[in-house]
């Protein structure tokens, strides 16, 4: 569901500009995700649920986050997957 520009010849330059912008944005985002591994992350979920966990990895479609030592309102789960659709935002210290 990623929007792409239509590309007749005249728009080739525009397409390249868009591809470059997308690459820069994506690469920076991936670097940010990679830097999170083994960091403490706080997730703010829908329904005012707050979670704390040690970040592991994300899938490339950013659908699921794999975490460890997940502190939930009802206890600790050693290994967990969090659906990104359940998350509003998350935070960590660099």
């Amino acid at each position, binding site marked *: 569901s990623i*929007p792409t520009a239509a590309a007749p010849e005249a728009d080739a330059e525009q397409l390249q500009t868009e591809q470059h912008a*997308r690459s*820069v944005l994506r690469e*920076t*985002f991936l670097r940010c995700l990679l830097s999170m591994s083994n960091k403490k992350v706080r997730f703010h979920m829908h329904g005012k649920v707050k979670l704390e966990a040690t970040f592991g990895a994300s899938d*490339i479609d*950013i659908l699921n986050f794999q975490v460890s030592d997940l502190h939930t309102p009802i206890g600790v789960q050693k290994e967990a997957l969090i659906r990104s659709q359940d998350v509003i*935002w998350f*935070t960590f210290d660099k």
Partner: protein
Amino acid sequence: MQCGWPMLGPLQWIRYVNKQVTVKAGKDEVHRGWLLTVDPVSASLVLVDFKENGGASVHVVMGHAVEEVQILQEADEETADRLRTSFLPPRTCGLDP
């Protein structure tokens, strides 16, 4: 920007990079920070807040939860520099075209 944030696309998103923004997400939560990037796959925003001790706190707001993004100001050269290098491995600093 009021709605449809995930539909904007790279050419629009990149105009928010290096700007200080406020992001409204999930009902009544507002985030403020320097926009590092927007993931083109999930439309999620990465906001950086620099601390006095040289560290930084990072907020990632999921694209599907974004309700409103507003630009407050443009980064000065020093802030833009800190943003640009914040997630680069040291060896490639300054080597990218």
